[in-house]
């Protein structure tokens, strides 16, 4: 086992372990802290897979930004109210379906179509920031501009939702 695959295994097992810790903690804040480290270890995996831009975004946006939102959401709700709630069976059913579909897909890819997991054969370049930039500004100009519209919609939505007088 080379050093490289050792690191892959390390981050993979670490992120699975931290993910299990996230969903088994009683205290929501503890879950959030474990989720931060889970996200960071997934960023390590992205980094090892040479998707450096995604790794950076994972750290900046997910660990830095979205986790702040999660923590604020936890702070905004009264935890005593949530503790008493029973999970509805519809949500359980949807979770089960999504989980089995996703894990089935991953298992299928691992067992049957392993070659689909190797991006080089499909002409996908390395995910360095530079490569992503040249893709964005050469082939995906319109989607790049649409991103700004999407962010605008999100901004307006955030302001609309969190203010009483609109």
């Amino acid at each position, binding site marked *: 086992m080379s*050093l490289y695959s050792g690191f892959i295994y390390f981050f993979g097992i670490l992120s699975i372990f931290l993910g299990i810790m996230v969903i088994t903690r009683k205290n929501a804040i503890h879950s959030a802290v474990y989720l931060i480290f889970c996200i960071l270890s997934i960023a390590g995996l992205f980094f090892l897979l040479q998707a450096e831009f995604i790794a950076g975004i994972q750290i900046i*946006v997910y660990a830095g930004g979205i986790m702040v939102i999660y923590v*604020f959401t936890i702070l*905004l709700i009264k935890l005593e109210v949530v503790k008493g709630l029973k999970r509805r069976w519809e949500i359980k059913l949807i979770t089960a379906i999504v989980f089995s579909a996703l894990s089935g897909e991953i298992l299928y890819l691992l067992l049957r179509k392993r070659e689909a997991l190797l991006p080089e054969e499909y002409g996908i370049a390395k995910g360095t920031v530079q490569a992503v930039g040249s893709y964005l500004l050469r082939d995906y100009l319109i989607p790049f501009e649409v991103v700004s519209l999407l962010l605008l919609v999100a901004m307006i939505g955030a302001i609309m939702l969190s203010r009483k007088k609109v």
Partner: protein
Amino acid sequence: MELFLLFIIVGLLTLGMLFIGAILGPKKISKVKLEPFECGSPLLQKEIGPFSIKYYMVALLFLIFDIEVAFLFPWALVFKRIKLTAFIVILAYFLVLIVGFIYAWKKGAFEWEE
């Protein structure tokens, strides 16, 4: 390869420093030391309580501008190669977002008082 060595050395160094600190450092635990630290002031409340929604909006706006800036990194690295196109593209990108910025400002999203 150098990167992995860096990871290993930094990891071992960190663990070693923590270990040495745990062994050699004096341990004097007192009640004050074990309290959660809140900017040096006395604790306002014991547990996590309900929060003002304004914090949430600040967090949401922070996240949006965060993502906005994240797209600047790939742009900045290819700017030297595709000069004018890149400039026009980012100009249009920011024009749309400045509309949102002005909207947020006009709606008083950056003001704390109602």
